[in-house]
């Protein structure tokens, strides 16, 4: 690789710090539920108890590991940026994804928040284009900020001509 090989620069803004707690809670919930599933029959049944508990331990350990590692990792990867011409995001942890969409091709902009996100005062901004690749999502923004970003995006999109296909 030569010196003038381009690299992607990370988008300018991180998501809200509270997103770490949101991801932790989410991951912990899933881990606990998956661990409990083999524990319940283990309490009732004597013969396969050892194997069920072993399965529970493996699932629980793995879940705990993900719960500790994933949110921090995600926080370092998840970033976003909105310029006058484009939306630019990065997301993921093991599998990472960078998305760019020009303003002229944005069809709709939504904000959405689940109950868990609401508890942390967070929101998602979803930017839809005509592509089947799926919408661009900025997950875990402060709710007020998300609303502002969505408004800004809507304004810029409407000011840009074209039928978005």
């Amino acid at each position: 690789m030569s010196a003038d090989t381009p690299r992607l620069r990370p988008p300018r803004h991180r998501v809200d710090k509270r997103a770490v707690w949101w991801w932790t809670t989410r991951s912990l919930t899933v881990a606990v539920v998956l661990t409990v599933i083999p524990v319940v029959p283990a309490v009732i049944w004597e013969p396969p108890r050892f194997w069920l508990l072993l399965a529970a331990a493996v699932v629980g350990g793995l879940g705990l590991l993900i719960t500790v590692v994933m949110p921090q990792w995600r926080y370092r990867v998840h970033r976003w940026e909105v310029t006058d011409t484009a939306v630019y995001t990065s997301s993921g942890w093991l599998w990472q994804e960078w998305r760019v969409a020009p303003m002229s091709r944005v069809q709709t902009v939504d904000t959405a928040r689940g109950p868990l996100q609401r508890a942390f005062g967070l929101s998602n901004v979803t930017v839809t284009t005509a592509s089947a690749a799926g919408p661009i999502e900025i997950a875990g923004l402060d709710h007020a900020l998300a609303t502002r970003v969505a408004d800004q995006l809507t304004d810029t999109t409407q000011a840009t001509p074209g039928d978005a296909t």
Partner: protein
Amino acid sequence: MSSPDEHRPAAEEDLPTVPSDARGEREGAASGEGGAAPSTADWQRLHPLSVWASAIVAGVFLVPSAVVGTVVLVSAGQPLWALAPVPGALAFLAFMTYLDMLRLRAVRYRVTAERMEMRSGIIAKAYRSIPRERVRSVDVAAPVYVRVFGLCSVTVGTGEKVGAGSEQLQLLYVTAEQGEWLRRDLLYRGTAGTAGVAGDSADGDPDAGEEAETELARLDRRWFAYAPATTATLGVGLGAITGLLGLNAQTGGVGWDWLSDQADLPSIAEMSSFVMGRFLLVVPLALLGLLVSGVIVLTAVAVETWWDYRLTREADGTVRLRRGLLTSVSLSVEGRRLNGVTLHEPFVLRSVGGADVRAVATGLAAADDKKTSAKSRLSPAMPRRRARELAAGLMRTPDSPLDGPLAVHPREALRRRFTRATVVTVLGAVLAGALAWLQTLVSAAWWEVVHEAEREIIPVPLATSTVEAAPSWGWAVLAVLIAAVAFWYAVGSYRGLGHGLHPRHLVVRQGMAIRDTVTLERSAVIGWRITRSPFQRRLGLADVAATTAAGQGVYAARDVGLGQGLAWAGEAVPELLEPFLVRGDGRGSDEPSHD
């Protein structure tokens, strides 16, 4: 986004005018062949004959089975019951036809200057409306039972991908002239008012517009030779033969007994012992038989699908596909929405030098990728050189993007494929080892059970005896074979990778089993998606994908070097990705690096 409610008042205020004059006009059009010029500014009905088309199709299946039922009942000594089938079938037919007539009466459609509207439903009323500028494709199909009435079905596709079914509007059936007129009119992007255009284009005889067409491709019957060149040939043959065997089993073996009596052929049991006796002779013959029947079936399908194939570009840029023997199909795609082409080369077809061409267009989307791909086919399998010419013609470029050199992907991409091949090899070895171990383990009694089970299922039980008789070194051969195929596939798959740029298009190529070379207009790119797995990050690779509204929506250069891929993407659509790229030590570069 427009909601249907906005347009409802206008629609309702026009509706009362329908009954008297629209009906009279339709009947006039029906009786005088081609005499009445179709005009669709008013609400129109479907053609009354379409009821009879449906009735005849149902009748063709129902009446003979009713007759057969009668004969069977009479010969079974139930003359009273034998009176039931024929009148029952006729009554059922009449009832269905009546329902169909009600349905037909409820359907009304019209094309105005802004939109195409359709009302339907007897109990649950439906109103659907498509803005004309959203119309991306018009599909006119005429199955043989509809064609004899001079009718056709019209399917109007839009670029919207919302919900199932709602992106299409289908008329079953209208007259052939009306279908042709709708096809022309809906895709016409003139500045003049629709009514005037409608009159002009519909008044002339059907051949009036043909002079302005340029022909891109026309069927060459020799191309049918490519039809059986698929991996499915053996499978289809197997399907055909198992179908026959299944039929034989359904009738309790009567079919074969009758045949062997007539032709003095041996019975199944004799055949099976014969097969076991001359194993080496029979197996190749059986494979040959499968191959031949597969070839026959696939060629027949190709002839039905691609008979009379013509691909033309009309004066306004619309690309029109015509094909079909029993079901004649005419598909029109607005030229502006044809954003690129795919050169589709499945492995077997590729090895005999064939390819086919598919559209990368908005508005051809179906429920899933597979159906989208099938609907996008613009040509039958044809020689590769001809397919490339056709692709160039479709893209309207003198120097085809497909002829340009493609950048090679880094060696690390090959390493990834070798890693996968190694995993497959290990799994294959484990499988072979396990089978060998099982074979030494199981007892003769167990084999008896398996043979018994096989005899129940398969008429010529060979598989388990082969397995039982196989020598232990056979398993080693199996493992080696799996490994060889895995690595051969890895190399082929790496060789298939490529990406390139053309002044107007970008090109990506990938695939071993099915090699697709996709060209996509740079102006149709509506974003980029770069994805990296942990393995790709370790090797400095990435999948760089252009997102678009056309075709499958994402077209990726797989396992490209990160810098290489970004340079390519940055150059392909300069304004889009450039602001987010940084160069090594701050120096700018004009030349993409393809190292």
